[in-house]
């Protein structure tokens, strides 16, 4: 076949829908299809990771060892984290970006569609490798998701599987990030200048740079671990002149930008949703962009606040303490901008708005506990306690995850062409919000009282708060089944959505039909 023939075939293909059958999903290069794949993958992993969390909470319902043995408990804490971070939040963000980013900047598709297909299809194999370790002799990885040596080097056959799966996930997210940068750089519609881009596009643009900068560092760290274990190197082995603390530095050099990778796109989502339902323009657009960029920059110079207790000189502790607290400034700018956007707005409270508001309030709670942890002298007390668990779950669950759910509700009518069941959505929001607080709020108290994290057993005085948390966990977990039901219902039918979907919605994605045709913006729109 010569090039011309390919082009002819391709033109022909453009005017039709997707090819029939399941094979379509394997070979697709369409950004909407791949976005859908990412989002379904993420939802499935959300239930798998959630089931692991429920195993943890079941064991912690009472002191003593009741349900699972400690080794399996540790596998659950480790895999719960890895699944939720790499399998849920990151793919969900990439899925939303795939679906919406080309439509928001007026591009016909992602810039590198075949690589797009590849970066998705690596994921199931990566997680296949990772989860298969659960069925191996010696079980899955159990040293915590941070994989600190020397403990993690005691992992059995699971270690190389885990390391290769991290390599695969890294390759996948680096390719996804490059694709996003390339799309934003090259495929914006005429007139869509950088400072006209929607904030979701901006936050993803910055996140993508964080991803390509730090995922390779993690890949390097786990590769060093692999060669330490199997090829006789001594990067982290003190007997051979290495240093286990060095792993922590390299890991958190990746790890801290990573936590912003997990939150910045949610900032973007909320910055789309709040103006729509306040029927006002976003307050302080350019300050939002600069705040996001400042957060991204600061994320590279604060990593050692995760390891205040390893023994650092005073100067180091002060440096990392002050830079960490500095992050509160751009983050505060964002929170105040969201609040100011709502100020005197004609607000309505549809489900996406409810989740976005929940995000603003509860993410801020997590932000404040983060400030507490930033203070070195206090961190010595809080380090590795449930207070830390409470902190990062507040920023990740009612933070990142609520942002994603808000985004899904916001665009679901656009994707399916049908409005979702608003009552069911509101029930989902209230159940989630109530139970997520029952789940994580008591963890602050047990943490302050000294309960260590990653422990299957605890002193009896912590029982009450742990039981409350477990009840919250089951409530929150089962409330998410409503989300699945609602999505399936919405796909199968419902009140037809208009093109604009929401009264106050503005932007290119609302100018196309709901559901959008398989190929949108083939002649690019012109933005004035």
């Amino acid at each position, binding site marked *: 076949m010569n090039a011309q023939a390919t082009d002819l075939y391709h033109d022909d293909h453009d005017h039709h829908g997707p090819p029939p059958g399941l094979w379509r999903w394997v070979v697709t290069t369409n950004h909407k299809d791949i976005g859908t794949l990412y989002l379904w993958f993420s939802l499935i992993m959300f239930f798998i990771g959630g089931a692991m969390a429920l195993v943890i909470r079941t064991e912690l319902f009472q002191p003593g060892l009741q349900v699972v043995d400690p080794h399996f408990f540790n596998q659950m804490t480790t895999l719960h984290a890895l699944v939720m971070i790499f399998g849920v939040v990151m793919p969900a963000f990439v899925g939303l970006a795939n679906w919406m980013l080309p439509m928001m900047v007026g591009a016909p598709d992602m*810039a590198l569609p075949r690589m797009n297909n590849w970066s998705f299809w690596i994921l199931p194999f990566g997680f296949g490798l990772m989860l298969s370790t659960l069925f191996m002799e010696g079980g899955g990885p159990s040293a915590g998701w941070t994989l600190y040596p020397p403990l993690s080097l005691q992992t059995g056959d699971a270690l190389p599987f885990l390391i290769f799966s991290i390599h695969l996930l890294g390759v996948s997210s680096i390719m996804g990030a490059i694709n996003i940068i390339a799309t934003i750089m090259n495929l914006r519609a005429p007139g869509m200048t950088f400072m006209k881009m929607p904030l979701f596009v901006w936050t993803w643009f910055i996140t993508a740079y964080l991803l390509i900068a730090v995922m*390779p*560092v993690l890949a*390097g760290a786990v590769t060093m671990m692999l060669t330490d274990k199997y090829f006789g190197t001594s990067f982290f082995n*003190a007997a051979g002149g290495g240093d286990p603390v060095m792993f922590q530095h390299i890991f958190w050099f990746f790890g801290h930008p990573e936590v912003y990778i997990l939150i910045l796109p949610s900032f973007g989502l909320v910055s789309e949703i709040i103006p729509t339902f306040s029927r006002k323009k976003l307050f302080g657009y350019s300050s939002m962009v600069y705040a996001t960029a400042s957060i991204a920059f600061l994320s590279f110079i604060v990593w050692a606040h995760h390891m205040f207790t390893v023994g650092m*000189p005073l100067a180091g502790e002060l440096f990392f303490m002050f830079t960490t607290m500095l992050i509160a400034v751009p983050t505060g700018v964002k929170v105040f901008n969201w609040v100011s956007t709502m100020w005197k707005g004609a607000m309505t409270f549809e489900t996406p708005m409810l989740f976005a508001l929940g995000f603003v309030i509860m993410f801020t709670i997590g932000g404040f506990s983060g400030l507490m942890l930033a203070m070195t002298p206090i961190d010595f007390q809080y380090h590795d306690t449930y207070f830390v668990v409470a902190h990062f779950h507040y920023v990740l669950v009612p933070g990142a995850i609520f942002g994603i759910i808000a985004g899904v509700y916001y665009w679901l009518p656009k994707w399916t062409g049908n409005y979702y069941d608003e009552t069911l959505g509101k029930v989902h929001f209230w159940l989630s919000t109530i139970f997520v607080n029952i789940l994580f709020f008591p963890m602050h108290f047990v943490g302050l009282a000294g309960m260590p994290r990653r422990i299957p057993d605890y002193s009896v005085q912590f029982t009450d708060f742990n039981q409350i948390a477990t009840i919250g966990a089951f409530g929150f977990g089962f409330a998410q089944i409503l989300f699945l039901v609602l999505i399936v219902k919405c796909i199968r039918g419902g009140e037809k959505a208009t093109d604009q979907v929401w009264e106050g919605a503005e932007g290119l994605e609302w100018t196309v039909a709901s559901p959008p045709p398989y190929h949108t913006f083939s002649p690019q729109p012109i933005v004035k």
Partner: protein
Amino acid sequence: MRKRFSIRHLFLIPVVMFGFGYLMVPIYNVFCDITGLNGKTGRISSQQVEQLDIDEQRQVKVEFDSVLNRQAPWDFDPEVNSMMVSPGKTYQTNYIATNQLDKAMVGQAVPSVAPAKAAAYFNKTECFCFNRQQFEANEQKRMPLVFVVDPGLPEDVSTVTLSYTFFDVNSKIN
């Protein structure tokens, strides 16, 4: 038409950052060497020792500590638990290790100095930790350590603790 942004440059970033991850290893070691963080001790030649001024007025207590890494089959102790030294003067002491197994073993000692700010001023001209130590079955060895405390040691440090951790490195060699 806008100038096209080249995607090839983007692929360079992950490659460079992968290398940077590895580059952090020497950076970390140099950083610890200069600052004395992590209690990494220095090595000094005998010529350099002669150039140090001996401060007879000042007495610093040096304590010796020994740690066995888990499952390392040795008895491992310092010959003396502590000694008073004058900065700038060279001293010798020994650590005694006994192989408890009926087979040849190889061990490696790794030093650490506390407080961390003293580490940069604690130098050794000779140390059993510079090399791996070979042991015959049940062999006992007196392993020498020659050290000098630099007169630049901060005034508020009156006690320096030198700790050795002894590792079984047979698996590294085979």
